[in-house]
């Protein structure tokens, strides 16, 4: 599994009196296949995961993926770390399903035939083949999230970061996404409020008020989180 090293990371917006710290002094090394990240809204968990593929650069400290610094080697880090957002509508950038899956491949120097083959097999894997030429906006919420996932996975990232992928979904669609994520061979970092998704995870990080306050097995971490919230 890839090794993600976060060292002394702090992140703040603004300067002087308007400076707002959203993440404080986080140091952690992640090499497990399944890592969960939980915490209240505004606790810093989304900022934390956004740093893992260089979407947010830390004000202090470093983030390295397999030895590559997210600040200096942003391009390589982004190729290794795929990112899936909460709202698939904000992530789907092309008009039709197949076009969106192909989007990330168009900059990889592949031929049209290679791209078409990869798109087809990816859509088949995630049950979207029959929707290949459909407008993305006509898909259901669950299908859109699967499309967003497919569009990331087609580029073969080593790590997949999912920022609350089931928050906007109903139970059925959330279960579909959960099944897909469970079967992935990738290293997965999942931010979620659905604590039952973390049952078979190896490690869970708990964030509270901009700090990493707990790091351990799912049962204990969820228990710690519940205590924090009461």
């Amino acid at each position, binding site marked *: 599994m890839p090794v993600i090293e976060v060292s002394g990371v702090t992140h703040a917006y603004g300067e002087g009196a308007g400076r707002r710290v959203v993440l404080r002094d986080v140091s952690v090394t992640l090499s497990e296949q399944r890592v969960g990240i939980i915490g209240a809204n505004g606790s810093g968990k989304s900022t934390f995961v956004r740093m893992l593929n260089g979407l947010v650069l830390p004000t202090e400290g470093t983030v390295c993926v397999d030895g590559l610094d997210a600040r200096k080697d942003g391009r390589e880090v982004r190729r290794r770390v795929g990112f899936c957002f909460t709202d698939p509508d904000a992530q789907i*950038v092309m008009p039709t399903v197949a076009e969106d899956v192909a989007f990330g491949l168009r900059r990889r120097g592949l031929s049209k035939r290679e791209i078409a083959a990869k798109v087809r097999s990816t859509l088949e894997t995630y049950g979207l083949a029959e929707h290949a030429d459909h407008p993305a906006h006509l898909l259901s919420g669950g299908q859109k999230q699967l499309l967003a996932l497919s569009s990331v996975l087609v580029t073969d990232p080593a790590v997949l970061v999912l920022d609350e992928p089931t928050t906007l979904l109903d139970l059925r669609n959330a279960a579909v996404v959960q099944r897909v994520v469970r079967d992935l061979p990738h290293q997965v970092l999942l931010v979620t409020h659905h604590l039952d998704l973390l049952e078979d995870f190896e490690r869970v990080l708990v964030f509270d008020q901009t700090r990493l306050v707990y790091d351990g097995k799912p049962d204990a971490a969820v228990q710690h989180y519940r205590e924090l919230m009461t």
Partner: protein
Amino acid sequence: MNSLGLYVPGTSPVHRMPAGAKLLAMLAAGAGSVLLHQPWQVGVAVTLALVGYRLGGLTVRMALRQVRPLLMVVGLVAVFHLVVNGWERAVVFVGVIVTLVLLAGLVTLTTRTTDMVDAIVRAARPLRVVGVHPERLGLLMALGIRSVPVVVGLAEEVRDAQRARGLTASPRAFAVPLIVRSLRHADALGDALVARGVDD
């Protein structure tokens, strides 16, 4: 269908035509339309456009669907010319508009957005010398097309929220949240593009 609900997958001769050729033909038809002065000429133009639909394996109903959104504008233009210039001019003006809309519809019905964008990117390559970035231009177009249904969806949500709160026909109460939400969407889309390596 494409993002606006138009693209119909197929293997007809019109589908197989290169996107660039279709766009050029549409451009030529637009420029050539100024040469149409007689009702019979317009009749031929409309017929040719409909033949294009037939060749593309598309139905007359699909053709009519392209024109339907313009009925009000076309009706007003027709009445204006009928009163001011007589029936012949009215037929010519309405016929030209209908022909061009039919042709634009035919192109979008038979061309994937990606192919259209690729054709425009290729056509824009010579503009590199004046600082134009063709790939960015293509991405901009694709994002524009993709954003239409998103903004329509946001507008519907804002309108529903207005109704739920008993606000009716308040332009400010409609426009402000729509603009704010559209800007938030644009922000999130920017993050998604960075995450997918667009800037790399």
